[in-house]
């Protein structure tokens, strides 16, 4: 005998509510206040925490780069060079170390950083000399003779 409709005492009831709640609360256990215990408060806090961590992963790159730049600036000022002069002259000398590396070298390899600063300083001086040119007066523009052939 096949029963085509289920009897009234058979209901679909949620049996794993505990585990579903624990899934959210496990991320909130280190929070402060009632939001580490109460599900309703925890859901909101955990959601905000996830969104903030997603956005922070993009901002971490900006923040770290600013930190490296600050460190390189401090280290190059110890050697008498400013940060823009240091970086631009290193790039002009075809040294392609990135800021993370230069900051690490400034912390852990001071002699190497000193030689990099000396290299940048020398390239800067050569640039100044090249900018001055021969020292002759430039030829005039209106006094130039135009040839029409």
């Amino acid at each position, binding site marked *: 005998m096949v029963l085509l409709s289920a009897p009234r005492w058979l209901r679909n009831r949620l049996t794993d509510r505990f585990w579903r709640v624990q899934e959210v609360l496990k991320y909130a256990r280190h929070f402060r206040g009632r939001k580490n215990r109460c599900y309703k408060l925890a859901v909101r806090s955990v*959601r*905000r925490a*996830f*969104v903030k*961590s*997603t956005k922070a*992963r993009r901002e971490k790159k900006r923040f770290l780069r600013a930190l490296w730049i600050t460190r390189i600036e401090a280290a190059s000022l110890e050697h008498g060079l400013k940060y823009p002069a240091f970086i631009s002259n290193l790039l002009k*000398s*075809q*040294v*392609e*170390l*990135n800021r*993370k*590396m230069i900051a*690490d*070298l400034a912390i*852990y*390899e001071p*002699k*190497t950083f000193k*030689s*990099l600063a000396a*290299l940048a300083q020398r390239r800067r*001086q*050569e640039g*100044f*000399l090249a*900018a*001055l040119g021969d*020292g*002759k*007066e430039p030829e005039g523009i209106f006094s130039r003779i135009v040839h029409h052939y």
Partner: protein
Amino acid sequence: MAAAPFPAPSPPSTSASGSRPWRRRGGRRRPGFGSLFGTAAPRARPRSTGNVQRRLPRPARPGGFQPPPAESPVPSQRLVAKTSLSSPPWPEVKLPDPLEEAKYHAEVVQKVNEMIATGQYGRLFAVVHFASKQWKVTSEDLIMMDNVLEAECGDRIRMEKVLLVGADDFTLIGRPLLGKDLVRVEATVIEKTESWPKINMRFWKRHNYQRKKIIRNPQAVLRINTIDIFPSLS
């Protein structure tokens, strides 16, 4: 006598009826009320005493003051007054003698070559460009890259893009890379796994919009075995 910036126009001292003939010296006299109350003494206008050289102002010559050229003006011998544009804003630069410098450079290169050949260096470090990142690396240290590596676990790998190699007494800086006959960096692949499950979540408030995604990146761990340098500097 310097060509000062254009001074305030001073009235010519020739005659009273110079540029403004309607103005006469001696104060203004207004008819009318004055005749009723009697003429008072003319108010004395403060006149400047002392030596005031009143001259017509000369047009300022560009380029500052320059004395008339005595001999043929060779640029290196001409005297130029010190203005804001007469010399470049950077301090004067003198490079050392190129011949002496070349000798010094050759000496240094030979010394470093000797040191490398005789092995007088301690621990070497290298800056290596690998997996689109730069790493400062010594022997026996671990590196974790956040992407896929086409090599099996246990393979020995040679890293070719070396930017810098250094020891305690010398550093070799590549412009931008060092030669493959100069440095050799070897590494072994230790493990290839996935990262911990990172959660990407987007949420707009009051719009009933939230998306949650769990990301697992493939990772690979390498151990740097050795860094070798060879005395092939020139």
